[in-house]
């Protein structure tokens, strides 16, 4: 039985969850823009920029001051949220949460910093405050709303998933194909005959049903691994395209890294599935080996005992390490840093060439 959350949700689900991520990725950049768009353009319009520059103020001091002031205002606004976040994490979070949270904070600081610096850079060059505002809101709309969907659809066009009906048919045919299983069974039987130095398969002191079951399972593993690989490879390629989209729109990078650090992305879900499947396979092997080791007369059944079930190890999931997550999202992280440095340079240059009028 397979269920999708979509079956149990209304159309409103398509608008997503009201999460902290939505506030940080979409709302906060708009707040930053509103705070910063008239930083230079507004002063210029009011004539105070000329005054400031006539005082002999170095432009780089001006931009540093503006950036720090903006940062101060934002941190006042963000302080309650950070306190609540840290408290929640301390009270309910997992042990490994702290470094992940610290990194997540850093990534969001980068992201918000990009918007703040971009706003200053545009404001320094804009002919009017109004112009700066419209340019910045335009970029915000593109970044937050348009870019994810456009790049996602582009990624799907570049890396399409297999057509579902024939995919399923091919998989079913591969699963029910008797040739590979019978070849494997023959090989294993020959190995058993050799191991027990028996004259033939009839003389083996084992229950061959166990062997046959295990061979059927292993054939299934091979088929499922191949077909799931065929399914997940394009999905991962699509996600890589989305990550690289961060070169154009920082939202795509921050979305990917934020999911990665929170442990809610596709790659970490797949890792969990892989671990659970490996556990299941180990358990099946124990059961089949037990059947193999207990020959029964016709009509009899060999049941497992508590000792057998005690052999099955506990399922202890070891989630991927922080290093693994960071390697997975290295591109997006590098692109975000590049964005930050780029916007910082733009703001710096803008301040240096500041026109008082």
């Amino acid at each position: 039985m397979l269920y999708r959350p979509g079956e149990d949700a209304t159309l409103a689900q398509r608008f997503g969850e009201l999460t902290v991520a939505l506030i940080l990725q979409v709302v906060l950049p708009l707040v930053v823009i509103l705070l910063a768009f008239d930083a230079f353009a507004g002063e210029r319009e009011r004539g105070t920029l000329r005054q400031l520059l006539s005082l002999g103020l170095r432009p780089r001091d001006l931009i540093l001051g503006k950036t720090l002031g903006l940062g101060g205002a934002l941190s006042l606004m963000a302080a309650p949220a950070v306190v609540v976040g840290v408290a929640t994490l301390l009270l309910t979070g997992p042990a490994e949460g702290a470094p992940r949270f610290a990194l997540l904070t850093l990534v969001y600081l980068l992201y918000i910093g990009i918007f703040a610096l971009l706003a200053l850079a545009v404001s320094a060059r804009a002919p009017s405050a109004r112009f700066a505002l419209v340019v910045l809101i335009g970029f915000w709309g593109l970044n937050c709303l348009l870019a994810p969907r456009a790049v996602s659809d582009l990624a799907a066009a570049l890396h399409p998933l297999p057509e579902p009906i024939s995919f399923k048919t091919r998989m079913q045919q591969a699963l029910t194909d008797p040739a590979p299983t019978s070849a494997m069974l023959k090989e294993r039987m020959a190995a058993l005959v050799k191991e027990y130095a028996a004259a033939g398969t009839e003389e083996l002191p084992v229950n061959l049903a166990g062997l046959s079951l295990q061979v059927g399972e292993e054939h299934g593993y091979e088929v499922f691994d191949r077909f799931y690989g065929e399914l997940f490879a394009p999905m991962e390629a699509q996600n890589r395209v989305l990550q690289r989209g961060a070169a154009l729109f920082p939202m795509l990078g921050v979305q990917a890294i934020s999911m990665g650090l929170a442990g809610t992305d596709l790659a970490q879900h797949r890792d969990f599935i892989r671990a659970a499947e490996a556990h299941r396979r180990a358990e099946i092997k124990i059961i089949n080996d037990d059947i193999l080791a207990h020959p029964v007369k016709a009509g009899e059944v060999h049941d497992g005992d508590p000792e057998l079930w005690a052999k099955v190890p506990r399922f202890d999931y070891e989630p991927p390490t922080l290093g693994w997550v960071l390697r997975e999202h290295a591109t997006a992280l590098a692109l975000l840093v590049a964005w930050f440095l780029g916007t910082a340079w733009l703001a710096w240059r803008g301040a240096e060439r500041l026109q008082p009028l």
Partner: protein
Amino acid sequence: MFGTIFRWEIRALRRDPACWAVMAFAVVAMVFAMFNGARWLAHIDAVAAAAGARDVSARVEAREQAARIDTKAEPAPFITRDPRSAFGYANGLMAHYAVLPPTPLAALTAGQSDLLPSILPLAPANLPSLTGGSEPENPHRLLIGRFDAAFAVIFLLPLVIIALMYALLTGERERGTLALLLAQPVTLRSLFAAKLVPRVLIILGLLGLLAALFILTMPDGAGMRLALWLAVALSYTALWFALAAAVVSRRGSSATHAVTLAALWLVLGMLLPAGINLAVKTLAPMPSRIELILALRAATDAAAAERSKLMGAFYEDHPELASAGSPTGDFVTLQLVTSQRVEHDLAPILTRYQNQLAHQQSLLDKLQFLSPALVAETALADSAGTGLPRQHLFFAQALAHHAELRAFFDPRALRKEKFTARDEVPPFRYVEEPMSDVAARVAPALAVFVSIALALGLWAWRTLRRRPSDA
């Protein structure tokens, strides 16, 4: 005077690079949306065609395999995959699908069509589930959503309208030209109207372009659905024009108006829908599906434990079948009897999920009117035939057809006769809902949009009484 200002406004807009940039952006977005939509429709069509082809090829394969088994060229497989048994064919080999034919408008609104399948594989032994035939899809992409024409209308057109409107009067005032204009024999109202009309024409042109692109690429477009879709899109943009007019007719600078409108767009289009989603899910929480899986296991174990009792009861009801199988029952009868029992035990649990979803939907039906974007999303998907109501109608028909399949296969399986009637399996035919039902569902959205647009427009009109301070 109105005519003169109108003509000059058009000249001014034609000289304005910002206006051209906004229009170019909107045109590129719409062409991209149409291209994407056409690809999506082609994909749905391709999947439906593949399903049809698979149905035929599975039948041929089963017939050939049965012939090989009959001539002893191949050993008979176990009954679950035996083409000569009604049970084995129906549940192991047959590829029988209920197909929801896409409307051409799926190219305009993907709606729920990427989440809920239009192809449901049916086998008598398994009760179909709403998402049973779902295609594999990248969850990240499902989260992000699609760039289709509905997205362009719901999210991008309001942005375009905001960009065209935010400095309608204040721009003139800030340049100092408003005082000069008002020194002419012209009222503030007619000045406002003369500046508004060219902008409305631009948006109408964009929607016209969308309709033209659609009609050109989909020659047999469904007329009534397209008309409804365009009516929703028009009334939704009218609402945004009225909202923008209500904001820009107030005092304040261009920057204030731009900020107010952008904030409204963010709240109405993104935050409120996400908040409504949260409210609906909190007020009517869905039980975990793990509960269902645990209940299924318990019911299966219970049915297995009562196996002989169930078989006894079955043969008491069907004494004519008792001679056909062994007295203790055979595999097929056992399967049917136990699965009937399991379904009986699970029915109340499944009903809980359905009831809770219905509860969520009824909450949403009321709350959605807080956000025009949510109403528009529902109404556009509804008129395109990719919304939930059509999907549920399809599922209800598929369930009815599933009962028909059982009535066809189960007696044949229980009689254990040799099965050859592969071409007599009843086919599924989707019966389309009457367009009057669709119109009735979309009408409240249209009424709400038009009345809010009128109210806001009237308010803006009252605000625009000429005040001495306006210049």
